[in-house]
């Protein structure tokens, strides 16, 4: 089968979870080594930035705090997982040179470690998220089951993307220069700091895109953005609002497609990857 090399590699990498979990943890600690609060800084910086940003933007855009602050915080939480899986995914294989040239290692080990690191980081962001809600005295009712499904979808998509882009940029290094700047653009194009219905013109108190008026140019702009689907399957369950079923289908289909593409490129290029590092 054309995917067999890639699948075997992924299975071998999954078996080494003890190692990538440890490495992800050390990476987390390394970021804030020798600071007083250590890894808590990851959460603290999220708390300070998003906490203040929530107040500022709610004021600028005349949104009620109890609607806007959790929306922004949940969106930031999701985006800070999705975006680095792409930007750091680009360098995850080339950056693994030290390990890959010293002993035989499955290539997918590195994307898995990256995803694990960002899940840990998201855990710290989630604590900050709760703290922000507590400060503003806002109560949200998450849906844990749907949240878990949403996390699985974005994680699969993230690992697939990191594998795909990580390998592609071994052979085409310019991707490492181009894509991060495009991701800055994507941040503003995706409904994170703005709410889709401010653009689409639907019910402003409805957090998911309002499609009761059918498809318009503006709603199509929102719906053509793949990042929006991934954000919604995390943000919806986290804030407890209803996400249309079609969003779950689109997000999981793209995630599966990304994983298959990642494994396909891995199967086709595996022997050449290490020689080109």
């Amino acid at each position, binding site marked *: 089968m054309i995917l067999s090399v890639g699948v075997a590699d992924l299975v071998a990498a999954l078996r*080494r979870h003890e190692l990538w979990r440890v490495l992800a943890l*050390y990476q987390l600690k390394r970021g804030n080594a020798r600071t007083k609060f250590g890894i808590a800084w990851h959460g603290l910086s999220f708390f300070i930035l998003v906490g203040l940003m929530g107040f500022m933007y709610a004021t600028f855009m005349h949104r009620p705090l109890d609607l806007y602050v959790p929306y922004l915080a949940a969106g930031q939480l999701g985006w800070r997982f999705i975006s680095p899986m792409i930007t750091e995914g680009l360098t995850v294989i080339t950056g693994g040179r030290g390990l890959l040239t010293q002993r035989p290692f499955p290539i997918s080990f590195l994307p898995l470690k990256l995803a694990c690191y960002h899940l840990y980081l998201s855990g710290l962001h989630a604590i900050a998220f709760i703290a922000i809600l507590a400060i503003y005295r806002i109560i949200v009712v998450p849906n844990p089951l749907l949240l878990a499904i949403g996390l699985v979808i974005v994680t699969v998509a993230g690992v697939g993307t990191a594998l795909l882009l990580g390998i592609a940029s071994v052979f085409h290094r310019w991707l490492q220069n181009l894509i991060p700047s495009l991701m800055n653009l994507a941040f503003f194009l995706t409904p994170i700091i703005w709410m889709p219905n401010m653009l689409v013109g639907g019910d402003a108190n409805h957090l998911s895109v309002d499609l009761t008026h059918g498809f318009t140019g503006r709603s199509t702009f929102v719906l053509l953005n793949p990042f929006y689907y991934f954000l919604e399957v995390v943000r919806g369950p986290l804030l407890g609002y209803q996400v249309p079923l079609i969003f779950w289908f689109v997000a999981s289909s793209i995630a599966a497609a990304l994983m298959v593409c990642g494994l396909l490129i891995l199967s086709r290029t595996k022997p050449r990857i290490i*020689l080109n590092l």
Partner: protein
Amino acid sequence: MRNTASSLRLFNASLRFPAQMGRVGNLRIAREKRADVGSELVEVGPGRYAVQALKDISLSLVPGDRLALIGGNGAGKTTLLRVLAGIFDLDSGLREVNGEISTIFNMRLGFEMAETGYDNIMLRGLIEGHPRSMVEMAVDEIADFSGLGEYLYMPLETYSAGMLARLAFSIATAWDASILILDEWIGAGDAGFLKMAEERLVTFVDKVQILVVASHNGAILRRFCNKAMVLAHGSLVYEGEVDAAWKWFQDHQKAKFAD
């Protein structure tokens, strides 16, 4: 696994490294100056070059074999070791392995300087591919041998270079292997530790079924190996007894400088 006979074989193994575009400069003009070192440069397309790191290498190792790899800089020793270890896939030819391979290329591989000695023992054990439970069983022995005592509770950044080397060596030689591949002979520490380290290394090496070691140290190779191969420009140019191979290599080096 320990009881079954290990083997390590290569059939007509060849490997090329692509040279990155834009880095080859005026190579075409400079090609008259043939290098004494390195492997052959081959043109694989217009203005594109590759390093022919290995060319048609065949070898067959069985239990009891202690192979010395001899060669000048860039002759392909390290590449060959990495092929044997399964890190590089071959462009053509076959590699066949029975047994567990253990490599010591970089003793400090994966060390986390901000973590404690104990944490690094676990980390390195996991990198070697051992499950957590197995590493836990070996921790005390490694800690004892390293002689680092209370320092094992301190982060590695507080260690001196010699202390780091002690820890690295103690970990690298902790788990038995059936096939051992060494890039340069290893040793570590001050005079006292060096003697202990050598004893430990000799016991460690004696237990392996197959040993492959690349080194520029003729005395070491003669002491521990029972067969030798000389590499030049990625090809196998001499095969035989260690003494004879070493002498052959020395004579050829001299002849080159006499030219």
